[in-house]
């Protein structure tokens, strides 16, 4: 209720002469004519739309403190570097959407993989565009992740109480690189095929789990007929599933703990309060 000062009103049926009508809805009546919108009121009205929506939902779903806390929580420091994490999320979503469209036409079998990739690239309407978005989206995502990570590092944002979020973030970076590796094989051209062979062989040289990891990725001791479908399943089911779960946990913790303030921002009250304590 607290977030909803305007809940009691019914904007869908305002009484025609009410002086309370928000400026946006004013039409004629005041002698201004239909085009005489009050700009300030328009702005204010637009800013209130999500509040009304939140209120509408709140009225019907009951109190939703979660919504209130996420939407109107106070955030310290919101310069542009703080949008990097969200930018990574957007890149991930773009990869998910373009990936779904590619999956509609891609066939992960050794005989059809290249042909379906060629069909997507050469014949399908907007096929090359969507494949290009997926291909370059990975590059954009990696760049953004490294920037996000660098900021977290230099701002000391991995420190108490946000250690767990750093940990989840590092796992997400590793998974993103694994996405790059498994996706690289799928077009099944010369370049991707041989690069993947080398990469999997490198994995196979690792101690203890190395050979098993290599065998798991290839689905056998050598590159064979099921390797592509294995990479495909890992690329579009296993790793994205893990990533979505971990992104959820990452965002939950961000909301719960709050983003760090820039390290050079100090509380004004701090000194005064310290004096009082003494």
């Amino acid at each position, binding site marked *: 209720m607290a977030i909803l000062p305007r809940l009691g009103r019914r904007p869908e049926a305002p009484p025609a002469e009410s002086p309370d009508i928000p400026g946006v809805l004013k039409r004629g009546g005041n002698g201004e004519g239909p085009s005489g919108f009050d700009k300030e009121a328009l702005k204010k009205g637009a*800013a209130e739309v999500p509040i009304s929506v939140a209120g509408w939902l709140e009225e019907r779903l009951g109190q939703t403190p979660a919504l209130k806390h996420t939407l109107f*929580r*106070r955030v*310290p*420091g*919101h310069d*542009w570097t*703080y*949008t990097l994490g969200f*930018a990574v999320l*957007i*890149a991930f979503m*773009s990869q998910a959407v373009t990936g779904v469209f590619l999956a509609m036409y891609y066939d992960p079998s050794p005989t059809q993989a*290249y042909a379906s990739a*060629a069909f997507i690239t*050469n014949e399908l309407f907007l096929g*090359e*565009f969507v*494949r*290009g*978005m997926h*291909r*370059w*989206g990975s*590059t*954009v995502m990696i760049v*953004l992740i490294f920037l996000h990570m660098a900021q977290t*590092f*230099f*701002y*000391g944002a*991995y*420190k*108490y*109480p*946000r*250690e767990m979020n*750093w940990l989840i973030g*590092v*796992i997400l970076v590793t998974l993103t690189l694994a996405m790059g590796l498994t996706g690289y094989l799928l077009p*099944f*051209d*010369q*370049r991707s095929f*041989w*690069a993947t062979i*080398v990469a999997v062989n*490198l994995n196979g*040289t*690792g*101690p203890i789990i190395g050979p098993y990891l290599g065998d798991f990725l290839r689905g056998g001791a050598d590159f064979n007929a099921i390797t592509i479908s294995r990479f495909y399943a890992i690329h579009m089911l296993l790793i994205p599933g893990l990533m979505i779960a971990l992104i959820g946990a990452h965002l939950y913790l961000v909301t719960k703990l*709050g983003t*760090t303030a820039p*390290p050079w*921002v*100090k*509380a*004004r*009250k*701090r000194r005064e309060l310290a004096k009082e304590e003494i």
Partner: protein
Amino acid sequence: MNKREKERYLREYGMIKDETGHPFFPYTVYKDGIMACVVVGVIILMSILFGAELGPKADPTTTTYTPRPEWYFFFLFELLRVVKPPELVILATIGIPTICLILLILLPFIDRSAERHPLKRPVALVAGITTIGAMAYLTILGAVAGAPTEIELPVAAQYQEGKEVTASAGCLACHQFGENGNSGPGPALTNIGAKLPRQAIERTLLNPTAPMPSYQSLQTQDPEAFDQMVDFLASLK
């Protein structure tokens, strides 16, 4: 951080939020929204400008191929070329990346000081900049390096096929040909024809000194390709 420092941090964080903070909506949402448009715009632009190339179909029996990873793996790839001795190769392929990953995961548990300002954390600052610098350097090195299965030395037309056989036979992993290949552990072969006669080259290929592998199997399976390879090597003067 000890208990007092933790409490102090949380208290100060609360104050900063009250004093300088803004509500998530609409301030953060507005900036995030613009950033989202920029990100999607850049992806679309890159797709339009660079497209999605599709090379020739994968052919496991091919003799010419170029195993190049995606650019963001160049730094790992390049580590392999920087580390020369064969007994240390495992360090480059698995050792260093694993150690770096473990350090990265443990970072918040290694650096537990209360200080957050980058300029007041000299060790972290130097370590961070060094890591970024090293990765950037290795990535650039990997980007400008010639493809590891391609020999760019100019040769006469009759040696062209031998050159391709050589390029795909794995020689470049240990030998250098002009600008291509690794400069160790084997000797550079750019002028091998001037140093060894044709027969000696053939003998070495069939009965090499360890750790070089023998090319006996190539001679039995495809004697023509083997001869072309020897001809090509003998022509390098």
